[in-house]
């Protein structure tokens, strides 16, 4: 192999993973669709009682819902919310997981013990059940900032999904902290913070990125599931899960309503899963070789 930087090697291996590349294109299309939501001539929330339950037509590509709203427009706006909830809750969860995992793995001993017991406690929570209770509970609190259901959903999903990253980062730190480069930095007088952030963390980026993709697919499915059950983002804000939830009620009258939001969730989650697969192979070439031997 010619002399190439680690980064470009990883990029090269990722590009060779054909499905991952297709998945990137699909995800970009999803994001562009969501960003271009304002370009349709309809409003996502304004009701038009005169034409409910229109089947798909050149005017309304995906038909209209029970309140006469254009489903295509609602799905595009819903994509904004669903993707944003997925992305932000993933970022918070990964951040929390990295902080907890890095501290536990680097310092070990009592710190590790306390942090891992907390992690274990969170891992024994039945996620979806606790999410529903929290969502129901928080919505009844008398604080106006809790009335923003998008915010609440982001926070509670992040609060219940950082543990896997924490465990992963901890195990990476435990092996890396004994390596020569860490000892060398310490001998040169490097501070703990500097060693953690500048020396160990960059070596964990691969697994963390892969875990982030899994996390994001999980978050999108959770958000849609919560909204579908009526405990996620509240109407009239559209999200894919919320649209699916109303579709369920009218499944006999307007079956097309149930098709599109599900397809959007499915395509997005599958694209993210493929990207995760591609990243895993790109960062860990050994896995591919072992597989193809």
């Amino acid at each position, binding site marked *: 192999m010619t002399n190439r930087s680690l980064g470009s090697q990883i990029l090269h291996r990722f590009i060779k993973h054909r499905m991952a590349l297709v998945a990137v294109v699909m995800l970009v299309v999803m994001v562009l669709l969501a960003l271009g939501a304002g370009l349709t001539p309809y409003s996502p929330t304004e009701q038009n009682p005169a034409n409910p339950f229109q089947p798909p037509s050149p005017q309304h590509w995906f038909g209209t819902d029970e309140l006469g709203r254009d489903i295509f427009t609602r799905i595009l706006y819903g994509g904004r919310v669903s993707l944003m909830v997925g992305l932000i809750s993933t970022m918070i969860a990964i951040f929390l997981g990295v902080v907890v995992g890095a501290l536990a793995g680097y310092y070990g001993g009592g710190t590790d013990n306390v942090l891992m*017991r907390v992690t*274990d*406690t969170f*891992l*024994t*929570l*039945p*996620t*979806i*059940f*606790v999410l*529903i*209770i*929290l969502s*129901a*509970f928080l919505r*009844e*609190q*008398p604080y106006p900032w809790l009335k923003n259901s998008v915010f609440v959903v982001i926070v509670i999903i992040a609060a219940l999904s950082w543990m896997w990253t924490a465990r992963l980062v901890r195990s990476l730190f435990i092996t890396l902290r004994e390596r020569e480069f860490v000892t060398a930095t310490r001998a040169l007088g490097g501070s703990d913070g500097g060693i953690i952030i500048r020396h160990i963390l960059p070596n964990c980026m691969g697994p963390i990125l892969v875990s982030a993709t899994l996390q994001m*697919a999980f978050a999108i*499915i959770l958000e*849609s*599931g919560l909204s*579908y*059950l*009526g*405990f996620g983002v509240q109407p009239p804000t559209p999200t894919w*899960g919320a649209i*699916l939830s109303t*579709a*369920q009620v009218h*499944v*006999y009258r307007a*079956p097309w309503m*149930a*098709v599109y*939001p*599900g397809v959007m*969730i*499915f395509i997005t*989650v*599958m694209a993210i*899963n*493929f990207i995760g697969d591609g990243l895993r192979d790109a960062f860990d070439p050994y896995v591919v070789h*072992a*597989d*193809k*031997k």
Partner: protein
Amino acid sequence: MFNYTLRRILQSIPILFILSILLFALVRTAPGGPLATAYRNPNVTKEQIEILKKHLGLDLPLPVQYVRWLGDMLRGNMGDSIKFRRPVSEMIAERIPNTLILVGVSFVITLIIAIPVGIISARKPYSFFDYTATTLTFIGQSVPVYWLGLALILVFYVAIQNPFTGKPLFPAGGMRTIGGEDSLSDLAWHLVLPVVALSASWAAWYSRFLRSSLLDVQHEDYVRTARAKGASDRVVYYKHALRNAILPLVTLIALDLPSLFAGALFIETIFSWPGMGRLFWDAARGRDYPVLLAVVMIDAVIIIFCNILADVFYGVLDPRVKYD
């Protein structure tokens, strides 16, 4: 082994303890708390609420209330449902068998699909079968269970009719035909769609996992040794490789069992299946906190139990793993 199991069980007690404090605090700080219905009822006067509070011990300090509540829970008394005014334990006992039927059947179907698919895929990796199976598993992993349930209703209830009777091919909900005979075939007929929806993604995960686990094991020294000794391909495969490859799968399944209940929450909601999940969903909509608390505590116990089970299984099945 016995000591290890015992220690794990003892270790889980503090976790359950912390969990119970958290959940208790959550329920007691909810607006109205356990007296929510009394507050909402305009016919109940302030004095009556005070009497109720005294009667239920709600005027005592919170720690005292917690200890009393914990004592009740340990004795299996989970309080009364706010909405139905019935003991929660009674309501849950009614629902548990229904959920176990749904989850149990789905679980068996999952394994019946996943294990052969995983084995065939791994025996001939990168064959036509393997590529088809891999594509299907990726689809299975990405389809949200609630949408799959809805799509199945759409296809097999709304779109396709039974050509002989003109009625829908499969029922869209419930556990038994109302007014119909209480037969096993009727139950099976109602089970088809929920079970397919619940099993699909699990079958996808497990077949994929077994495939990669089998591929890993093939390069182990003991497999090469078996081959070198002249054991036939079949023997090497099923006696040496499969046995070892299935170990991590057993652990994974034990760890995953609780999430089958989470999946059942969606499936029971969609198909109006009268199980724990449906009970929980109804209770959440009515803010029936005693019911919610009981279901979550039961689920937490199941999760902890399954975690211990996974570790113990691993120790029993794999002699290389030693617990002190």
